[in-house]
């Protein structure tokens, strides 16, 4: 139960580093540049440069490195699986063989490359979420998607949805806890039995939760209308995003770096 209270939304670590102060749009674009770079380069030196990029970002962000690395944990299984599949499933020069299992040189190389790519991908993107508060991230995404409006990208609506989701996650968690306690007081058991049994036991929890979520949605819609909400049209923003000199410098540096590295390697 205490677990529910400990969930923090996103993983934002407040700070005042150079990266923290960058415009969220700059950070999103720089992250996208890293992703592109990781898929464009095909050699170890190329990955070396990408790793340098990520390390430099961690250093400048002043985040505790241990905290950044912890972000890899949920993906450990996927990384190991990718590594194993590539090592054992690639054809080529056989280094070691036991029955039908064989390890090839090409497999090792590709496995290592894939592994590095995934690790750098996760580390790079987590720097974005670690240094940017959810609110700024939402503002950044909205602002970047805005040019896509003529082709039907609902930028404002997506941002609004994200904001409301962020606003209501703690409220709904609190409510879940309340319902759980109420059900437990009447003898419900959420902690024993096999997986199937436990999943079944969650039904009496989910039904009231859903009903109340719909009621909340209804109330919120009326409240928003009463406060003059009518979609993104003609709406101003409380916090205007503003590109600073450092954003220009950062974007220029990142662009040059990405292009040069991906062309050369």
């Amino acid at each position, binding site marked *: 139960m205490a677990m529910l209270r400990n969930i923090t939304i996103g993983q934002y670590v407040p700070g005042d580093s150079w990266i923290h102060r960058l415009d969220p749009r700059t950070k999103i674009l720089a992250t996208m540049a890293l992703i592109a770079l990781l898929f464009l380069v095909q050699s170890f030196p190329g990955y070396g440069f990408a790793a340098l990029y990520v390390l430099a970002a961690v250093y400048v962000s002043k985040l505790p490195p241990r905290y950044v690395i912890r972000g890899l944990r949920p993906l450990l299984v996927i990384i190991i699986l990718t590594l194993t599949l590539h090592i054992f499933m690639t054809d080529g020069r056989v280094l070691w063989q036991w029955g039908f299992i064989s390890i090839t040189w090409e497999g090792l190389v590709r496995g290592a490359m894939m592994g590095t790519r995934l690790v750098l991908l996760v580390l790079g993107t987590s720097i974005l979420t670690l240094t940017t508060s959810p609110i700024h991230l939402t503002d950044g995404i909205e602002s970047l998607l805005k040019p896509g409006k003529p082709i039907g990208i609902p930028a404002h609506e997506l941002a609004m949805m994200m904001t409301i989701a962020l606003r209501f996650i703690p409220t709904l968690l609190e409510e879940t806890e309340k319902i759980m306690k109420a059900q437990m007081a009447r003898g419900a058991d959420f902690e024993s039995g096999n997986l199937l049994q436990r999943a079944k036991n969650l039904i009496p929890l989910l039904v009231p939760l859903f009903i109340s979520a719909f009621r909340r949605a209804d109330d919120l819609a*009326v*409240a928003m209308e009463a*406060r003059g909400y*009518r979609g993104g049209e003609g709406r101003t923003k409380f916090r205007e995003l503003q590109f600073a000199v450092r954003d220009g410098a950062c974007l220029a540096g990142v662009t040059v770096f990405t292009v040069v590295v991906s062309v050369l390697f």
Partner: protein
Amino acid sequence: MADALIEFRNVNHIYGKGTQQEWDALIDVSVSIRPGEFVAVLGHNGSGKSTLAKHANALLLPSSGCVLVDGMDTRDEETVWDIRQRVGMVFQNPDNQLVATTVEEDVAFGPENLGVPSPEIRRRVDEALLAVDMLEYRLHSPHQLSGGQKQRVAIAGMIAMRPKCIVLDEPTAMLDPVGRQEVMQTVRRLNEEENITVLHITHYMDEAIFADRILVMESGRIALEGTPAQVFSQVDTLYKLQLDVPQMTALAHRLNKRGFSLPADTLTVDELVNQLCQ
């Protein structure tokens, strides 16, 4: 009455028209709210008081009759947004009306919708939070606040839109006594100092004592209307409408039955003490 801020003219509202559950929530209601007034609306559940409130800013439209806000008809689609800027509304559930992830963002939501330029929004947000005494919480997220604080933020969200009138639809029903007191103090101060018109829907009699005028609703009609003293002195009528009277009024009423002769419009402890000690 040309000087009315909100005017209900023969308003009828029928829920589920033409269905089995057809139900007349408002029947021929005519009342006008003057600028600067503090009007309390009392009534038990289902008496139509909430429906009345929702007519004041065009969230509900009359089935017949009309509602005029500052001279604008709520049925006119072109002026709906002007009406909603003039008449703010605070709802019962403090959790379900805050939109944004921080207090200041939430207060900014209304002005953002109005298209107010951002430096001006900043100013209005600070002003509004100061008015409800929540400025120090401006960077908190709503779920870190108590119920009374959330309702004050909701009120600040209205103030930032610079309304002429605030409609409060049972804002204290889900709060503890401390929260209730916080909210009522804030509302009274806004009414007295900022001269904002208040339409306060409640079923707590004690909150209605401070009103300039009380409307008592009963099955869609206005059953009683007058100053708190006029309304609460009709103790037996109120009991018939399944409503309580303020504790001190009830006490005075019972003492009178035992042979005392206290004025029937006694509302507060101080008044009763003075009268008993004479």
